[in-house]
């Protein structure tokens, strides 16, 4: 769909504004708020043919235990994850956690407060490898991570797994990048 443009002095009708809204670049798909104290949080049916690429936002996810790396999975698959998680802390001492043909992708460090992450997910629904890359932070660390599920399968869901303990709060938002 082409980008809607307007001329100077033109009246913006409801139809125009509806078209403008439909032309937005990032479109809300779904959200999932933590309920209870799960160690795995799965957002089902969040990937489909409407979008090829997605932005996922972890808003203030909290964990019962801090300082451990959490992991991500797509489609419930538990093999063929490859990637690199890097981190540093305000107290010094950072490092790297690698995933090599792993059962999930190590992606960020969890904390009891202020754990947040934004990541882009490329082609989860298409029968191609799913690529993930993003930024994460917790109470006293920051990091970036990249990785992929190197399996040419179609995935409709996304999961966050606590590296230790449980997930105690927060919300995950899923947005789709509008196709041109």
């Amino acid at each position, binding site marked *: 769909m082409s980008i809607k443009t307007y001329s100077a002095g033109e009246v913006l009708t409801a139809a125009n504004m509806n078209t403008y809204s439909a032309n937005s670049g990032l479109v809300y798909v779904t959200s*999932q708020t*933590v*309920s*209870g*104290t*799960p*160690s*795995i*949080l*799965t*957002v*089902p*049916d969040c990937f489909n043919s409407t979008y090829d690429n997605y932005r996922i936002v972890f808003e*203030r996810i*909290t964990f019962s235990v*801090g*300082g*451990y*790396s*959490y*992991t991500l*999975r797509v489609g419930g698959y*538990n093999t063929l994850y490859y990637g690199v998680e890097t*981190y*540093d*802390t*305000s*107290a*010094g*001492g*950072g*490092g790297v*956690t690698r995933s090599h043909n*792993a*059962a*999930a992708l*190590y992606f960020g*460090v969890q*904390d*009891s*407060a*202020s754990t947040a992450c934004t990541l882009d997910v490329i082609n989860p629904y298409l029968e191609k490898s799913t690529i993930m890359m993003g930024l994460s932070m917790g*109470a*006293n*660390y920051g990091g970036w991570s990249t990785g992929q599920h190197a399996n040419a399968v179609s995935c409709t869901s996304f999961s966050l*797994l*606590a*590296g*230790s303990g*449980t*997930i105690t*709060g927060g919300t995950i938002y899923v947005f789709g990048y509008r196709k041109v």
Partner: protein
Amino acid sequence: MPNPFIQIGNETREMTDDEFAEYQEATKDAKLIDGYVPLDIPN
């Protein structure tokens, strides 16, 4: 001891034994990171 919980959509339930085994495999290399210091900050 019961298995940990899994939340799928709005449903939270105990993991099956297979799900718990997969969870343990997926997090087996998680370790306390160097330099981690718990901070008392508001969420």
